[in-house]
Structure formats: structure tokens, C-alpha cells
């Protein structure tokens, strides 16, 4: 163990910023992070053991106690659930003889739930030791169980089990006009750096992660620095180290377009990053890849190498004197790291807790230096704009939303996959194209977005109407809205980083309050209390996670108030005290769970 950790730390230059990647390797090697390793790492990296423990306990993919040699996680996304995840999971547990959430006694296998793995177009999906399992069926589960029980190494498993399709169904502006590696950089140097930034500005490109911040302006701010620095000598400004970060922590349930873009068009994404680096004068870039996309890692490294060999990355790019390289950093299971300042914290080897702002990352980001963080799709669009010009992009879309949007379409439809549309496209068009029938509603922008009913399909994809990072989940009339909401609310409670009170406590209170109503224990005031709770979480939370965590309830409560009201009891008072729940400890002590050991909450005659 000693040697392994020593070598691993050395390989990472004893850099505390590399803590996540070190822990990833330790977890893979020992199936947990042993205490002795924590002590050794604290020593080698010169950081406190509490820092290491807090990082381990923050990320879902790190563990202080051993997981199985085959650690299986099943995606608990709503789309996986709609494809029968629950019964498959039970079946899996039976086949493997393991309790969900636990490790089998022989230590060989463990099985647990995880947040959306980004395979919603080919679920039910899961991960085994970090690698994706798609299209799970009972026969596949039988096959996997056999492989595990025979202790066949993962490398020898049939590749079909890990097969991931791109499912590009409808290309448009970007996907139909792919650029050749190097074209955007050549165009950049031909046209000039400020001139190319002007093209991106003219294109009115806005961030594709969902928030829609003006991309050219972000790059400009990063280069120029805050106003108070504007009077610094240019030479002093030049000395600052700047960073380019590509946010590929695609964690919003229902979205998977970045997975496809990085699998099929990585060159163009890296080219967009290099373009940005040249414009803002950065020498180092990072691709923050969500841990669930481990399967893309080797392939992306190969693309980077190819680019280095072609002179498109590394020292003196295209002999123009600009040095820039890109490192790939894998996450470890934390939705919050999609928030840009949390992502930067994570890149620095810390817990992914969103920072206080100001200062914003453009002035103080990675290691306190000016940093541009953009979405995968944004960099890809920027590269295309460099080649084709701002006009080419800006003539498509609406007044406030130029260009196109790439959607991850999933849920109840015949053809889930990647669809690209000009901004301004009505929702109905998407539904027609993907073969959606008998539609109840669509969740636009994932759980943090909005649920629209079938009365609203004339509404448009646009920042000024329905803004989305790309998640597009379709529900047909057989679906139960409250169950959907419940899945989303559980997700947020699970993913809340816990930094601020309203989100840390509020999301769990919300989960419990919703469960109370759904279980039929709600009385007259409970829907009012639910909404009141939503408002405070939305209004008072620290970051986007908390500010949007109540959206699933708020957007459905607005559209279907009767659904919530119908769940309420007709009595005027329901005790908040859970009588039966209070007996749980006694039942555990007495080791019994028969009917006689349970009490009903309220005598049914009261109704």
C-alpha cells in the first residue's frame, strides 16, 4: 500500500489540487479509502487529514468503508424509473444475493442507487466500477450476475454490455457544419484575435449550460479584468495566469448531449477551448468531466494527444507563439459541481461548495486567477463561429437567443436521442419529430427547470421563454405527476451540498412534506405549508441548486393544484407526530416487525 500511494502522489507531483484524481485511483485500487492511506496522503500532500476526510465524505464515489470488488450503481433518474428500474433493481439484488445499498458478505459485490448517469436515451442504466451499463434487462442482469460470481475481470466482459450509442437523430446548425481540426484556429489567426472575439460578440452567443450569459462578454471580462484593474499597466495584467475550463459535469437528470458531443466531436470542443485560450491569453485549460463519463476518458486523452501531435495543442500552437494545454479532471459523483464556482473548488481538490460571489470566476476563479468556465456546447459553437462568422450564427434563432440548441430528448417517445433546433422552435415540433404520443407534459431543463403541460406546447425553446441546458423529458398520460415530482425532490435533497441552511434543511423538509401529502397524511394546511417552504428555499438559498430545487413542486402546483389537494385528508387536524415511526427503535430492540408491533396514526373512524 505504502509504495502505491507514494508513487501515486509522486505522479501527481504531491499537488493537493490533484486530491480528487488521487482518491479516484485509491478508491479503484482498494474499493475504499483506508485510514492508513488518509494518514499517508496527509503527510505526502501536506494537507490535514480532515481536509481529505471531508472530500471523501462529500463525493458519492468515495467511501470510507469498502464497497464490493464489483461496485454496481443503478441510475435513479426518472427516465430509468419509467423504464422499469425499480423491479430490475430488485431482480438484480436477488440474483446477486445482495441487499440494496450494501456489500455482499464475501465483499465481492455491492449494489446501490446513484443519481442520473446520463444514459437516459438507453436506460435503464447503471455503472460497474465506474463504467456504464446500458439497456439493462433481466437477461443482461443474469449475464452480469454470472460474470461477477465467476469473478471475470471487467476487461473480459462482452463489450456489448458497455456499448453506448450516440443516437444523433436530428442535426442542425452545429451538427451539420462540423469543422475540421485546426480550422477555427487558422481562421482565428487569419482574422485576428480581437476581430474573432468581435465575431463571437456579433453572433450573440450565450452560455449553453442554461443561464445564458453572453460568452464574448465573459471572455472580455476575463481578459480585461475587473474595472479597478483597468488602470493597471498592461504588462501587469499580462502577468496574470488565466484559465479556461470546460464544464462537462453534465449532471442535470435527463441530459446527455455533452456525452455525445465529447464522444463524437471532441476535436471541436477542444478547438473552442483553445480559441478561448488564445483570446484571453490562457496557457492552461481543464475539462471537468463528470465521474459518470469515465468511459470517455481514454478516448479524450487520445484526441488531446492527436492535437498535440498536429500542433493544435501544446507549445507554440500553429507556430503563432501561443502555448496552451488541456488537462482532463474527473469528478466523483456530485451534481453541485456543475455550478461553476463549485466546479472550480473541485478542480482545486476540495469539496464542491459554491463560493460567495462576488468575486466571480472571471476575475477570481481557479487558484484565485481569472477563469472562463463555459459549457461543452458553448465551446463547440464558438469554434464554429470562428470559422463561419458571427452572422452565420446570428441569423438563426430569435431576437434574444441566437443560433441553435442541442437537446437531449428522452422519456416517453419512440426515438430518444440528440436533437438540434434553432432557438424559437415550438415544443410541439420536438414532440412530433421524436415520436411522442398522448403527451401529458414535458420537463424542460431537467428537475431544476420547469414542467409544462400539454396546453403549452406552442411555447418556444428560447432564453426568453423556455430556457434549458438541454434536458427534455417527455411524460405520457399514464404517468403520475406526483411521483415524478417526488423523484426530483429526492434528487435535490440528496445532492444539496449542505453549505447553506435553507437548502440543506429545506430540501429535506420539502422531501418529507411531499411524502406526507403523497402518503395521504396531509391535512388542510399542508399544501400551503408546502408552497411556503418552496418559496423560502427558492428565495434564500446560496446558489442555483437551492434556488431551483423547489421548481418541480412550484411548477406542478401552479398547473395542477387539484392533484395536491386530492391527496389531503378531510380532517382538519393531522398530528405531526409519527406514532408508528416512534416505535421503530422499540421494534429494533425487540427484534420484531409483526402487525402487533405497529400502530396506525389515526383511528380510521375519524374520517
Amino acid at each position, binding site marked *: 500500500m505504502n509504495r502505491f500511494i507514494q508513487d501515486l502522489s509522486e505522479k501527481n507531483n504531491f499537488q493537493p489540487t490533484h486530491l480528487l484524481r488521487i482518491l479516484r485511483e485509491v478508491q479503484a485500487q482498494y474499493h475504499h479509502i483506508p485510514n492508513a492511506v488518509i494518514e499517508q496522503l496527509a503527510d505526502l500532500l501536506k494537507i*490535514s487529514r480532515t481536509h481529505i476526510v471531508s472530500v471523501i465524505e462529500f463525493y458519492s464515489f468515495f467511501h470510507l468503508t469498502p464497497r464490493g470488488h464489483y461496485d454496481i450503481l443503478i441510475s435513479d433518474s426518472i427516465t430509468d424509473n419509467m423504464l422499469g428500474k425499480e423491479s430490475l433493481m430488485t431482480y438484480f439484488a436477488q440474483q446477486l444475493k445482495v441487499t440494496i445499498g450494501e456489500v455482499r458478505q464475501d465483499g465481492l459485490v455491492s449494489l446501490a442507487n446513484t443519481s442520473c448517469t446520463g444514459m437516459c436515451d438507453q436506460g435503464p442504466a447503471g455503472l460497474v466500477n465506474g463504467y456504464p451499463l446500458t439497456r439493462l434487462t433481466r437477461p443482461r442482469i443474469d449475464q452480469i450476475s454470472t460474470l461477477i460470481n465467476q469473478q471475470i475481470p471487467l476487461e473480459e466482459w462482452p463489450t456489448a454490455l458497455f456499448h453506448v450509442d450516440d443516437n444523433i437523430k436530428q442535426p442542425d446548425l452545429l451538427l451539420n457544419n462540423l469543422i475540421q481540426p485546426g480550422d477555427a484556429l487558422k481562421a482565428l489567426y487569419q482574422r485576428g484575435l480581437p476581430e474573432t472575439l468581435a465575431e463571437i460578440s456579433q453572433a450573440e452567443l450565450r452560455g449553453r449550460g442554461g443561464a445564458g450569459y453572453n460568452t464574448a462578454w465573459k471572455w472580455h471580462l476575463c481578459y480585461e479584468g475587473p474595472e479597478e484593474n483597468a488602470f493597471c499597466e498592461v504588462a501587469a495584467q499580462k502577468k496574470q495566469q488565466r484559465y479556461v475550463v470546460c464544464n462537462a459535469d453534465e449532471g442535470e437528470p435527463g441530459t446527455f448531449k455533452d456525452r455525445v458531443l465529447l464522444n463524437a466531436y471532441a476535436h471541436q470542443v477542444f478547438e473552442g477551448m483553445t480559441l478561448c485560450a488564445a483570446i484571453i491569453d490562457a496557457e492552461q485549460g481543464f475539462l471537468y468531466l463528470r465521474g459518470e463519463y469515465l468511459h470517455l476518458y481514454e478516448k479524450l486523452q487520445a484526441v488531446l494527444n492527436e492535437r498535440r501531435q498536429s500542433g493544435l495543442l501544446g507549445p507554440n500552437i500553429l507556430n503563432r507563439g501561443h502555448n496552451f494545454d488541456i488537462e482532463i479532471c474527473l469528478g466523483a459523483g456530485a451534481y453541485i459541481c456543475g455550478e461553476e464556482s463549485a466546479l472550480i473548488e473541485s478542480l482545486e481538490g476540495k469539496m464542491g461548495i459554491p463560493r460567495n460571489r462576488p468575486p466571480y470566476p472571471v476575475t477570481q476563479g481557479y487558484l484565485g486567477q481569472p477563469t472562463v468556465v463555459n459549457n461543452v456546447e458553448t465551446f463547440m459553437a464558438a469554434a464554429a463561429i470562428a470559422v463561419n462568422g458571427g452572422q452565420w450564427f446570428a441569423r438563426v434563432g430569435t431576437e434574444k437567443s441566437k443560433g441553435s440548441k442541442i437537446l437531449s430528448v428522452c422519456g416517453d417517445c419512440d426515438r430518444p436521442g440528440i436533437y438540434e433546433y434553432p432557438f424559437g422552435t415550438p415544443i410541439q415540433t420536438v414532440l412530433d419529430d421524436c415520436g411522442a404520443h398522448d403527451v401529458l407534459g414535458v420537463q424542460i431543463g431537467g428537475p431544476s427547470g420547469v414542467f409544462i403541460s400539454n396546453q403549452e406546447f406552442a411555447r418556444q425553446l428560447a432564453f426568453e421563454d423556455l430556457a434549458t441546458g438541454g434536458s427534455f423529458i417527455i411524460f405520457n398520460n399514464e404517468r403520475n405527476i406526483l411521483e415524478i415530482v417526488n423523484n426530483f425532490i429526492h434528487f435535490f435533497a440528496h445532492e444539496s*451540498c449542505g453549505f447553506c441552511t435553507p437548502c440543506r434543511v429545506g430540501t429535506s423538509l420539502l422531501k418529507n412534506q411531499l411524502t406526507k401529502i403523497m402518503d395521504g397524511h396531509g391535512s388542510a394546511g399542508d399544501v400551503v405549508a408546502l408552497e411556503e417552504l418552496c418559496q423560502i428555499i427558492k428565495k434564500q438559498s446560496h446558489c442555483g441548486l437551492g434556488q431551483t430545487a423547489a421548481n418541480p413542486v412550484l411548477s406542478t402546483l401552479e398547473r395542477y393544484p387539484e392533484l395536491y389537494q386530492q391527496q389531503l385528508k378531510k380532517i382538519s387536524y393531522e398530528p405531526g407526530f409519527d406514532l408508528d415511526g416512534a416505535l421503530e427503535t422499540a421494534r429494533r430492540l425487540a427484534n420484531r416487525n409483526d402487525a402487533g408491533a405497529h400502530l396506525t396514526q389515526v383511528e380510521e373512524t375519524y374520517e
Partner: protein
Amino acid sequence: MSNSITIDGKPIPFSEGQTIMEAATAAGVYIPHLCHHPEYTPHGSCKLCNVKVNGRICSACTYPAMDGQDILNNTQELTDDRQKITQMLFVEGNHFCPSCEKTGNCQLQAVAYHLNMLDDHFPLFYPTRAVDASHEALMIDHNRCIFCTLCVRASQQKDHKDVFAISGRGLNKHLIVNAQSGLLKDTDISMNDQAAHICPTGAILIKHTAYQVPIGERLYDHKQIDQVSLASETLKHDK
């Protein structure tokens, strides 16, 4: 250059680099807070100090004062929200004021008084949390920790040690100490450390001192937290 903000309509001067909290405290305006302490880097996590700056909610302890800001602090809406946030802190842990030795000296309790909190409002979580009484002079009662990180910051910034950290995610957050055993007795904390005395609740306690000052004669038994806070923090901010 006259730098000025208004809080609830009252003009308040500030100097460059001050936060809204610092400017307000210097001018004798109390903004409720628990995780903030003038001697340590602001943290911005309890969210009690959330104020409305030109219509937008911002944490007063971290948000910089800027010329022309129109700030709302003492409004019914914010007081209601602050009360609920305080109630959230109460239901999340196990806070039984009548049997807690910190009662009367507890900032969480005092803020609750100040906000006129009369009940828990939300269902209690009753979490199972441990007590670490291993140290001869100090103890940690995790039931009362509100994750304000004051002990973490005090230990790092004042004591130049690194005794505490907040670990875990979401509702599983918990205070950990820097010892292989995980016990306070095996850390390098000492009675004289700021970190030993900074806890705004009864989570970190000095042993053998519990009832030296009788209940009824304690700090917040006769004074409101706004008076106490303004009196003690104005000077510290000015430093």
C-alpha cells in the same frame, strides 16, 4: 468621494472594501447573523443576514457595500424568512434549551428570541448524533452543531491550528476533528484556543463551568442580541 448606502431608508456611510454587514454594524444597525464573526473571514452560510440589495437577496456578511445600494433589512418579509431559517436550524439538530447548559448564553437561542420565534414550526428531525466527551477540559455535543464553521475558522485563523472541519454533504454534514482516532482528546486543541470558546450554540462546551453563572443571570437573559452584538462587534469590525 462620499460612499453611502441606505438601509431601510437610512443613509449609511461605508469605506472601500467594507461588506454591508461591516458598514451596518459600524453605523449601529443590527443584521441578524450566526455564522458571522468580525474577526474571521466571512462565511455566508447561515443565511440569517440575507438582505435585499436593490431587490436582490444577498448575504450581508459577504456582499460588498457599493455606492448607491438600496438595502432592506428590517422588513416583515425578511424577519419572517429569518425566523423560518432559525426554525430550520432548530429542527435539524436536537436543541432542548431548558436542559442545555448554554441556555442564556446561546446565540442561536438569542437570535430566536430576537426574531420572536415561538415554536419549531417544522417537524423535528430528531437525528441521532453523538457526544464527544473524551477531552478532559472540553466537550463536543454534536446535537447542537449548526455548521457555522466558526470553530473551524477560529482554529485556523487565530489559533494557527487545524482542529476542526465540516465534513459530509447535505443533511449528513457533521463536525470532525483532526485526530486519527476522531476524538477531541487526541487533537492539539487547548483550553486557551479561540476555537474552544467561539461556538455560538452549546456544541463546544468548556467542562466544569456549566452553572457557575446561574440561569437568569446570563448574557441574553437580560439583553437582546442586537444590543450585545452591536456593542461587541463594532469595535472588532473597526480594527
